[in-house]
């Protein structure tokens, strides 16, 4: 089954790949980049990335910038294919966000709470399309709704159990889940504990 990702209009707008000198325009540009990164990663269930990967990804790399609709297709073999309709006689240019600008976008995401560096050298990062606090809130709401306060869960049960199949946090990656639970722990709504074969959580 192929999923298609709809790129926003900015992605086909050549100046989008140049860091704008005008402060107000740059703000709009960065907001659009942040939004694009989050929706891209959300759709492809990508929770972490290296900067190298990011540079090569179609995300920051519009290989054929054209004035026609382009779609990204995820094929059954998990490869990404970028397809587009050819624009007749139009100039084809490359749109590639330079790595310094990519760093600026990533820093924006970090400031907003959607990104966390996984190493000191800032070569790889965790990307969370919802902030940990937001995830924590959703999880706790489910716990309360289903009357399961004071219950203990393994991390696996929370994200892969039958009971949570309809919940948004079903299928959430462990790294993000941990941070969500840590946020709840801070609010004294949960406690991360060790269980027989790994980690679990108790809700209050």
């Amino acid at each position, binding site marked *: 089954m192929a999923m298609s990702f709809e790129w*926003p*209009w900015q992605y*086909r*707008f*050549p*100046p*989008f*790949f*140049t860091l*704008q*000198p*005008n402060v*107000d*325009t740059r703000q*709009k*540009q960065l*907001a*659009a980049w942040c*939004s694009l990164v989050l929706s891209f990663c959300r759709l492809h269930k990508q929770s972490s990335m290296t900067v190298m990967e990011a540079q090569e990804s179609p995300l920051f790399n519009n290989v054929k910038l054209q*004035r*026609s609709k382009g779609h990204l297709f995820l094929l059954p073999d998990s490869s990404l294919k970028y397809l587009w309709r050819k624009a007749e006689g139009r100039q084809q*240019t*490359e*749109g*590639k966000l330079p790595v310094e600008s990519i760093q600026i976008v990533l820093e924006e995401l970090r400031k907003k709470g959607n990104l966390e560096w996984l190493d000191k050298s800032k070569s790889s990062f965790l990307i969370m399309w919802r902030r940990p606090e937001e995830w924590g809130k959703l999880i706790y709401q489910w716990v309360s709704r289903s009357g399961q306060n004071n219950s203990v869960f393994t991390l696996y049960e929370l994200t892969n159990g039958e009971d949570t199949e309809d919940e948004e946090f079903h299928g959430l990656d462990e790294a993000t889940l941990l941070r969500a639970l840590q946020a709840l722990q801070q609010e004294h709504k949960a406690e991360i504990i060790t269980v027989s074969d790994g980690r679990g959580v108790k809700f209050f």
Partner: protein
Amino acid sequence: MHRRGVGAGAIAKKKLAEAKYKERGTVLAEDQLAQMSKQLDMFKTNLEEFASKHKQEIRKNPEFRVQFQDMCATIGVDPLACVSHCARPEMTFRLPALWSRLTLFFSRSYPGKGFWSEMLGVGDFYYELGVQIIEVCLALKHRNGGLITLEELHQQVLKGRGKFAQDVSQDDLIRAIKKLKALGTGFGIIPVGGTYLIQSVPAELNMDHTVVLQLAEKNGYVTVSEIKASLKWETERARQVLEHLLKEGLAWLDLQAPGEAHYWLPALFTDLYSQEITAEEAREALP
């Protein structure tokens, strides 16, 4: 009896004659006014009849609207103005008193929003359209800096009106925008390459800026070289204009284009026509 010659008496008589002439002039004006009033009454009745007979047509049919507006313009009537006036300068010059009495006649008889617009119901249509235009421009300002092509505006307005609303033509849009402009809302109309750019944010755009916008219309972008070649300007003058467009948020800089920096205008980026206003942009548009 001998004829009077030039002397004190003659001068006095001349003065008397002049005075009588002036009096007659006033009398003449009164007559004319009475006659005009009668004619205007008749004209008004006829126009009212015409308007009520064709009211539906005026509301529904954009082409008919254009023709009706043209007819009104020919006879010097602005259906959207508060005071209808006859656009005949000779009258104004020759009989200023009569002219001002005419204006008074209309404004006294039909105070308020505009007799014509109320009677014909045409004013509401343009008033509502004006509001819709402002809404579209506000929603897209975040994207294009307050500059939009007439085509895109038209598309978005039609989209907003839905399938069952009255049809709206580009001519309708221009008229509505002219009204908005007259109300001092900061709207502007810039002719470019056969169409128009509508300015909804009062960015300072002088002749230099406008002419560069016109140049940019062809490809959606413009470069310093292009400006120098087409307009025969010095580099500095071209740079200043482009800097201003960047500053006003009307243009974005592209340093990855082949050769030299390209300055793109989101308003002219044709791809945008088919784009929906994203939820984020809608959020940004709200104050």
